């Protein structure tokens, strides 16, 4: 029973740390700057 409680505590702490890291994470995806424009005109450029 004591071991089970310890396991629950450890899992809880790990979950809290994981959630915090996910919320505060700075691993952003590199963004492109710009936009898409439909090809048009006689040359479709």
């Amino acid at each position, binding site marked *: 029973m004591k071991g089970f409680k310890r396991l629950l505590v450890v899992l809880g702490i790990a979950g809290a740390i994981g959630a915090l890291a996910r919320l505060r994470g700075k691993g952003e*995806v*590199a963004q*492109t*700057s*710009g*936009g*898409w424009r*439909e*090809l048009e005109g006689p040359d*479709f450029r």
Partner: protein
Amino acid sequence: MTTALVVGVGAVGTRAARQLIDTPGISRVLLADRDIAQLREVAEILGPDAQAIDFLPGDPLPTDVGVVATALPAGLDHDVVAAAIGANVPVASSEDEHDAIDQLRALVPNAIAAGTTIVLGCGLAPGLSDVLARHAADMFDAIDEIRVARTGWAGPASVATVRHERRIAARTWHDGGWREEHPHGDNLVWFPEPIGARDCRPVTAGTALLVDAFPTVPRLSVQLGEPPRRTRFRRRFGDEGEWGACRVEVWGRRSGTFDTVVYGVVERTAVAAGTVLAVVAARLAGALEPLVSNPGIHGLAALTEPVPLLSELAQRGVRAAAFEGVSIA
């Protein structure tokens, strides 16, 4: 007026048949599929200009066929293409699996000897992506690299091909030679909205068709996104299908400076693939101008002028876009 034979009436073949029926120069569309119930249902939906026939890969072509469009699972095109070469009937094929493409390319001497034009990879990518690569490449004095990426799948057979391509080692064209790359994770690729960023992995797929078209370009690569697992449970015949996208980047030099051109397309994958397949078939048959005729086996980048094809596709609702801004290398 020409009779077209569409072999395979799944997600892509059905759309191709519809587009062919709507093409003025095509008088009749014959449909063939091993699934008889689906074949009859599609023929009934498409109306009196469509006729279901008893034809399977390996059978001789019906005598009055002017062009064949195939939309079959990977590896089944070979017998149809061989029969078409024997009958000197041009073929547009949506085949996009690399082993099957290599097997078909082995028929080049037969096609040249017979004077028959065979076009492979008539889909979103390969297919429309090859046309866009040619269109972009024509702007450059020298090209350093062409990158093609696709996310999206037309039907269960398409999903199976994508999974297979992503699972095995990829062969990319690097510094003028083939290089094997074992799967080591995905790269983030930015497609036009609303698709946005998707994880994609280098695959072999239609790279050989790009090499045929751009033999002097040092680096050529193709990437595919991963289908979600739920796809196989969600798809039913008659669905509008999954949205897909392709992105084509061409890096090189023009006017003395390094530059890049990025093109993209967002469309329902089956609709885009079916439309490309139908337009190419119609041009092979002479039902649309300009006629495509160049005996041998080719991808679209090696065979067609981009602008007339892009124009015809745009009239049918499949439109490409250019990225304007700073692209990430």
